[in-house]
């Protein structure tokens, strides 16, 4: 799957043109295998994908990207391995910690708990698409200001979650924050800063 000459080792802020062209080219070269088999199960017709690779088209950060993926590949792994979008992290790998938070049609989801094939047709937004060039968003700027990060491994997930939370709760109460930002874990213990970020964005005082 990995096309040697098109892969890059350097950090990038998103999907490069080369990645995109490479992935498209792979799709074009693949013979017509595909589409699910249909089997009958419990009296109903069920589409069976795989077990081999199947074509998957994802709408990531405003770009349509096609790749050949096994149906068991999670959205998180597809983003990280195929598209080199490494902001979302795999930490618990089972929907407990929120480090892999991305937006699916504008709603935060745990990327480890969504299959890539199931994310087709949805608008996928990762942390990399939140910045405009080098410009931090106000939420990111506030994370820096309030030192709401230490090792930084949970930070992208928290930034995506906080960004969405503040869109939903522009004037959050302390209680809103406790509930709304409780879906992500941090091991360094940056919650005090994150709480301050949410309150500051709301124009409030830290309680």
């Amino acid at each position, binding site marked *: 799957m990995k096309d040697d000459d098109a892969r890059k080792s350097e950090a990038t802020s998103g999907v490069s043109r080369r990645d995109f062209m490479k992935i498209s080219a792979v799709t074009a070269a693949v013979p017509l295998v595909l589409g699910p088999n249909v089997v009958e199960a419990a009296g109903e017709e069920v589409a069976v994908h795989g077990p081999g690779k199947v074509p998957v088209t994802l709408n990531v950060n405003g770009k349509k990207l096609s790749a050949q993926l096994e149906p068991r590949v999670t959205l998180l792994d597809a983003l990280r391995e195929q598209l080199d979008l490494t902001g979302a992290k*795999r930490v618990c790998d089972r929907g407990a910690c929120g480090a892999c938070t991305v937006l699916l049609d504008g709603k935060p989801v745990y990327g480890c708990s969504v299959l890539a094939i199931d994310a087709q047709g949805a608008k996928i937004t990762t942390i990399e698409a939140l910045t405009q060039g080098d410009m931090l968003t106000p939420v990111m700027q506030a994370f820096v200001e309030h*030192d709401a990060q*230490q090792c930084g*491994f949970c930070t992208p997930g928290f930034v995506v979650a906080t960004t969405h939370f503040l869109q939903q709760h522009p004037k959050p109460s302390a209680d809103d924050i406790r509930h709304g930002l409780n879906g992500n874990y941090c091991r360094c213990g940056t919650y*005090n800063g994150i709480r301050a970020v949410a309150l500051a964005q709301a124009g409030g005082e830290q309680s």
Partner: protein
Amino acid sequence: MSQFSWPDPATRPLLGKSISRVDGPAKSSGHAKYTYDYNPQGLLAGKILRCPYAHARITSIDTSAAEKMPGVKAVQIIQRPGTEIFWAGDEIVGVAAVDERTVDDALRAIKVEYEVLPHFVSDAEPPKTVAADTGPISVDDFKDMEENQVPDEEVIARIQKSGISFKPEEKDYQSMKGMGVDQAVIAALRKAKFVPAEAKAKSPYKKTAVQTQGTPDQAFASAAAVSEGVYGAPCIVHCCLETHGSASEWPGEKEMVVHISTQNVSGIAAQMAEPLGVPAGNINVLQQNIGGGFGSKFSADRWDINTANLSKAAGGKPVKNMLDRKAEFEVAGMRPSAYARVKIAADKDGKIVAWDSHSWGTGGVGGGGTPPLPYIFEIPNQRKQNTAISTNQGSARAWRAPNHPQAAVITMGAIEDLAAKMKMDPMELILSNLDIAGPRKDTYKEEFAIADELMGWKKNWHQRRDQTAGNIKRGMGLSMHTWGGRGHNSDCDLTIHPDGSVEIKMGTQDLGTGARTIIIIVAADTLGIPMENVNLLYGNNRYPQSGGSGGSTTSGGVTSSTRRAAVEARDELFAKVAPALKAQPEELEAVEGRVRVKGDASRSLSWKEACAKVGAVPLAVGGKNPDKARPPDLTNSGVGGVQMADVSVDIETGIVRVNKMVAVQDCGLVVNVKTAESQVYGALVMGISYALYEEKILDPVTGRMLNPNLEFYRLAGLSDIGELKVHMMTGKGYDERGVIGLAEPPVVSPGASISNAVANAIGVRVPFLPLTPQNVLNALEAAGGWRA
């Protein structure tokens, strides 16, 4: 002669201010790259088949089916048939393949047969019949003491007293030196008497001889108050969010590059050289960001060696293996448990006069660390004994402030219970015993006064057992802690380029503590230039060596070497610039981006103009720590801190909530207030987490960890932390001590202070952490229920 000492408070443009970390934008925008994110051309996925049994012998391994699978690039047996395995999750076979799915399939195709052997995983109180072990120190005993950071004096005393049952060779001494074993300990080993180990019946228990000081029996007999209790904390794990692991590749036959998640960039090559059969100088170690270490990431582990071997077998292609969460929990380190049965006594004036403890705990197969009991207080009459329990589980690794949090839970719990027995405010009891609280006693006194104010302790403290009606009982508890932290060895190169840019190279790492920010602060402060002018190159073992980040030694080390290099570079620059300003070099100063004659702004050059005088060759200076030739010592050892907790306990459900915590902390000269405070806030959160939720639960039947995942190994979330107040001690009495690291001390006290607050609220001691509903309700029931 250059003045290397820290600048006067009046002339510190950046030092001691509150400055945002330089790595903040990259982290908050998701662009910061970790080992886990390394994703080069042709990357292969590596993974390891692990032993499912807690104790077993491998009888056969068949990898033939896996080797034939499409996409599999290399298969390597790590431990061969015949090998005895001592913990579940130990490494058996490593596989590299084109992607993780293929590796998973290949691991499933490998057939390993085991002879299952009996295991032991309980760290419950040892039977009273266990006899003390006075035999010589084995190589495992020694490793265990070093891994658990038993104080050097104690290790030396035990070596001298009991002799050793192993014969280290010269290369062993060299490797110990490389791992940071103290010179005095190595000297003691060299002189140690060799005593052959006696054959004895296999027992998981290793009991030390009784240590006595003073006359404990008489002191207890004549005491005005005696309190007895059981206290302790279970095994917990580090739970780094970025798991352990590395990516290796071989650009040449004898040349390797490893990206590794490590606290020890400069120390990894030496550890990999021998097992891989390449000179350390041919191994390039790289790391820009690390997703948590907490003491568990100093070594190149067996899986890292395997990753490098798989890469070699796959023709040098890059292979990356980051542990999955389950393996991280089972094999990548844990904090040893420690429990104790304690008797403590005071005289009628509230002077603590006697201590008696039998402690026990496990740190895996090697036994466990001995908590430094009694903690902080040099109680005149003592009797102590410890039993280390060997259990079939992955070994302990240093966990922030090794042994201190456990010692605090035990000692501060006993002191709180003694105060309750005497109907005294525990703060009063502690204040009246500060004369035996060691070298930081004056610091504690100042800190308690501040903490009292921030918490409203005297105003709100009540006698044990909240008399308020209803289910919710409120209480307050406190604790105190100490740590060493003298700066580690650190070298750096600092270069001033003729265009005015400044570059520092240092083989260090930043665990999220703010290390890179304080290095840049010190350089920019010394040179009188903006931080943006300083480019720090780090995270590469080809840069000057800097120590591993452990024991709160990094801040002291890296700021000292940077300061020395920056002062010397600045003074060399002054020498080159002085003629142009018609002044003597010692009349010059570098401030606000200019080099000028002190007190005469009209005679100045911009920093850039000044640097142009350097000539064609950049001005390069080396800095190091320690450095007797360039005094003074810029770092120090020994800090004190106090913490207070306010909790609510629901006596019907057993749920404990932290309402508020206060931390007052000393760490000498604070370089950056913002990141220093973050360390303390973070420690409070981590402390609330281990106080209320964390426990590594081992199943006695299977010997496996029952909760190796983040659903059942619970961490504190944002809703669990309550209000947090942090106060850093600064100014006179602190600044002039020099820079001291801060990672360990503030994480010591939360468990003890929260446990004490719960006891104050419900009137009953919950003996062991974590303070889960089950443990709280059990303690209440053992006391006959709330109404009893």
